[in-house]
């Protein structure tokens, strides 16, 4: 372990630190407001949550300074050790943690309770960066990609076992890092396509455009064919011959579909589309083998897979999911209005934010949050306090701070000399981005209720501390890179 020789205070990125401190201050104000009681109010009561949060902020600033002083090589040397330690703690947590509202993720250490899952994020990022930075690492070799997957999946599975679904999902943010490092965009696109097909088939599967055809089916067929053609264009711009062939096949089946619509046959109008997609997939696989172009195979599999996925979603949704899980999804997709059950929280949080208007009700004047209509209002739903009391102007400023922070971190990551720094930097960006999107999306009713905190704003020592460590390790690495920039 070595300490830096050059003045870290000269090299560290002050823009990020200012943004970090600004978000911390806003967050403390929100926690103070969320905990404020109309009846009794004393500002610096350390027993209250805003008092505890103040202590945590102090700890975080000290931690941040310590991290900046540590030589950045330290992180690289000890990354596997840190990762292994966290994995062991995660395993221990499954057995040692007490059940808190169905989750077994909190460890009690004397006066503290910490959530190890929060710390697994920076540990995984360090391990991933170190591994991918290693000599002759190639993402496309099977061995390397399996190992990369394992580094990400191991903590994810352990956290799932702690029944912390939200925290586990955060690890899918590493896919974004892999994309930046060269993973095929098609994998990300497949994920996006899967989510879209899922929503289309659940939400529009029941909306019929004829006796036998649902709007969901037709839209999925069209989407799949469009995806196939566009991908062919993007990945193989020189192979125009096959594209023309597929376009002819698609045109033929389009005509067939319209003819079918004119006959009294009781067949789904999407049926010719299925056959069409099947034939296209066969042709693509044939040429993939013939010309040794594995992009063709991927596109063919994606098209066939989309349709298979659609059928399995329907099966899964109606035959495998528990009723309460189904309701959660239906409420989210706006198929059900369930204001007392699953939809209550989101509805109250939308009321809180919506009632804030443009300028908000003023600091400490939010009735929705003060009177406890919004659940978890100082942790997962902290954004409501901003929305209700500071209005659209307030949320724009907070989101603006986050956006500038993310763009700044991308710029920092891109200027790293070694891929270790870049990969770690992108991990920080991806994790923060995932947290912000999912948390705000949930609070404003765009995404399902997945309980993860809003970085640096939500109440909670573990999360605040873990985000500080995550961020300042990167700033520490960056400070050393800077002179040669």
């Amino acid at each position, binding site marked *: 372990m070595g300490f830096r020789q050059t003045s870290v205070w000269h090299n560290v990125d002050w823009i990020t630190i200012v943004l970090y401190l600004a978000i911390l201050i806003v967050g403390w104000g929100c926690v103070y407001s969320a905990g404020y009681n*109309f*009846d009794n109010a004393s500002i610096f009561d350390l027993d209250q949550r805003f008092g505890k949060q103040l202590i945590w902020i102090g700890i975080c600033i000290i931690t941040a300074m310590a991290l900046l002083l540590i030589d950045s090589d330290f992180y690289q040397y000890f990354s596997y050790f840190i990762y292994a330690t966290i994995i062991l703690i995660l395993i221990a947590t499954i057995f040692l943690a007490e059940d808190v509202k169905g989750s077994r993720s909190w460890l009690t250490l004397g006066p503290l309770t910490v959530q190890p899952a929060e710390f697994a994020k920076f540990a995984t990022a360090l391990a991933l960066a170190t591994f991918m930075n290693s000599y002759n690492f190639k993402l496309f070799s099977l061995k390397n990609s399996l190992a990369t997957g394992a580094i990400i999946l191991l903590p994810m599975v352990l956290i799932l076992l702690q029944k912390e679904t939200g925290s586990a999902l955060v690890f899918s943010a590493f896919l*974004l890092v892999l*994309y*930046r*490092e*060269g993973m095929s*965009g098609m994998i990300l696109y497949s994920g996006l396509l899967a989510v879209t097909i899922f929503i289309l088939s659940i939400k529009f599967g029941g909306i019929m455009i004829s006796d036998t055809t649902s709007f969901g089916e037709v839209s999925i067929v069209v989407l799949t064919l469009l995806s196939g053609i566009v991908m062919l264009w993007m990945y193989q711009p020189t192979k125009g011959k096959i594209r023309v062939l597929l376009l002819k096949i698609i045109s033929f089946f389009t005509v067939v579909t319209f003819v079918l619509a004119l006959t009294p046959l009781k067949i789904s109008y999407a049926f010719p589309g299925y056959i069409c997609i099947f034939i296209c997939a066969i042709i693509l696989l044939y040429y993939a083998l013939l010309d040794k172009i594995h992009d063709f195979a991927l596109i063919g599999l994606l098209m066939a897979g989309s349709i298979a996925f659609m059928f399995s979603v329907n099966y899964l949704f109606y035959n495998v999911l528990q009723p309460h899980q189904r309701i959660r999804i239906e409420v989210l997709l706006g198929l059900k209005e369930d204001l*007392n059950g699953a939809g209550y929280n989101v509805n*109250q949080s*939308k*009321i*809180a*934010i*919506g*009632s*804030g*208007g*443009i300028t908000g009700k003023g600091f400490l004047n939010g*009735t*929705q949050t003060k*009177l*406890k*209509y919004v659940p978890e209002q100082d942790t997962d739903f902290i954004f409501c306090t901003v*929305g*209700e009391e500071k*209005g*659209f102007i307030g*949320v*724009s400023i907070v*989101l603006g701070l*986050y*956006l500038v922070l*993310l*763009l700044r971190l*991308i710029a920092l990551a*891109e200027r790293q000399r070694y891929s270790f720094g870049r990969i770690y930097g*992108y991990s920080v*960006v991806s994790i923060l*981005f995932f947290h912000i*999107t999912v948390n*705000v*999306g949930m609070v*404003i*009713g*765009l995404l399902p209720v997945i309980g993860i905190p809003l970085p640096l704003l939500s109440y909670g020592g573990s999360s605040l501390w873990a985000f500080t460590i995550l961020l300042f390790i990167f700033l520490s690495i960056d400070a050393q890179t800077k002179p040669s920039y």
Partner: protein
Amino acid sequence: MRPNELINRRTVFQTAVVLVFIILLAQLFYLQVLRNDYKKYADSNAFLNRTIYPSRGMIYDRTGKLLVYNRPAYDIIIIMNEIEPFDTLDFCNTIHITKQQFINRIIEIKDRRKNPGYSSYTQQILYTQVSAEEYGILQEKLYKFPGFYVQSRTIREYGDSIGAHFLGDIGEVNKRDIENDNYYVSGDYSGRSGIEKSYEEVLRGEKGVEIMLRDAHGRLKGRYENGIHDKEARAGKNLHLSIDSELQRYGELLMKNKTGSIVAIDPETGGILCLVSSPTYNPNLLIGRLRGKNHVELSKDPKKPLFNRALMAQYPPGSTFKPAQSLVFLQEGAITPSTSFYCWGKGGHPACHAHASPISLIPALATSCNVFPYFALRIVFGNKTKYPTIQDAMDSWRDYMVSMGFGYTLGVDLPGEKRGLIPNSRFYDKIYGTNGWKYNTIYSISIGQGEVNLTPIQIANLAAQISNRGWYYPPHIVKEVEQGQLDSIYTHKRHTLIDSKYYDAIIQGMHGAVNEGTCRGAQIDSINVCGKTGTAQNRGEDHSIFMGFAPMEKARIAISVYVENGGFGARWAVPIGGLMMEKYLKGKIPENRKWVEDKMINGTVKVYGL
């Protein structure tokens, strides 16, 4: 993988981040700026507007005696979505209902057809008017019943149990009341009859409101901004009646087991001294939780106790109409006080009875001759120079009668007053055709029979205006509104179309009727009483009628008594009228008249058909 693709990915990454933030902001813009209903939802979540009910104005009689006052009562309120499982049996026992009644009531509340404003988030009235004892016990246990609240209210108490018809009652407002007046919400009370109804807006006061903060569990967290937005309740105004409660009680006693009414008016002010309608009922039957049941029973009673005969019954006035007629004869110059007519007694139409003949106006009134008004009205109608057609004569006569307060409502400050009937030419044209009738067709109006109908209060008002020699104030029951004003129609004198000089003869005739004529039973020691009997033919026994005032020189009381199927006026109505005037003027009935009093109180008059 081409080398520049990795650099491209940085741009893709940045674009994706910016795009996602734009989507988030767009949704926030939609929620916070475009939609404006969330503010309302937030307010209805957080603010509980607690109504503070004002105390209803009290009612006193003319001597300052308290007739109607308030007694505390409690309503049980529920908010359905706040209810958690609780001990139903314990709850039901506390307020003395059965579990089944409770279940039925809940079903009733949730039924949107019966309760259109139902919402599980708002206050619903479970039971009204729970007694103070029940409230005391319930209050202790209320913490065990989340979602249940108690709201204090007042209910009416009618201290003397008299005057049910004019005091009226209050009851829960119905759908139409709520639509017509946005002061009311479901579960409020308003006057349903009597003074309670006609003075509703004066008595009810103004509701106040207390804005409380309520948390997600329904717990109240104190007043919103220390109550600066609250509104205090303003108590209703007190009313002082012109009613003499002793006289009222006495009148109700005298009318026991008889059907009819007594109306007494102070001629000087138009204030109603008593308004008896018999049969009557105890006004305290129509308060509290039993109101509904008792109201149904009373409305089914064939004797119609809810019917306020004093204002709503329209009877032929019989001979009490003769003084009004005589005034028209004098005003029209058809007769002078010395004009005499020959009376044919029993032998002609209309039939009369034995008395000296020929007869002039004053003795004709005293003996209630039927032939005299027959001839006199024929002269009025026969004046072809003044009235070329019978229609002209008829309508002129009608105008005289209307000026005396007949044919239209007097504007009494009580609901339900009827107008009676004074026929005009169109009325007879319709029945007989334009040329199909002449004086002999309609002569029975001359003696207060035929088509003429008056209400008892119109007859009492006739007595009052005769004693005043040609003017009256519209009869009214409220003498004074505390910190308020009486309607101006009660302070504007109305004059009849008769010159005041013509009244002396009429008053002498009515004095004669009491002194030596048909209503000697109304004599009072050392007071000059004026009166007129009436006997109105109808199915069954005749109605017994009296109209009078006293003292003759300056009347302090004018009265009408109507006893249905009581036979001759002298039999029931005259002695009752005499006793009432004596009671009012002297305060008590002398020993030598006690036997009359006993006879009246204990007498029973059977009503035709019952």
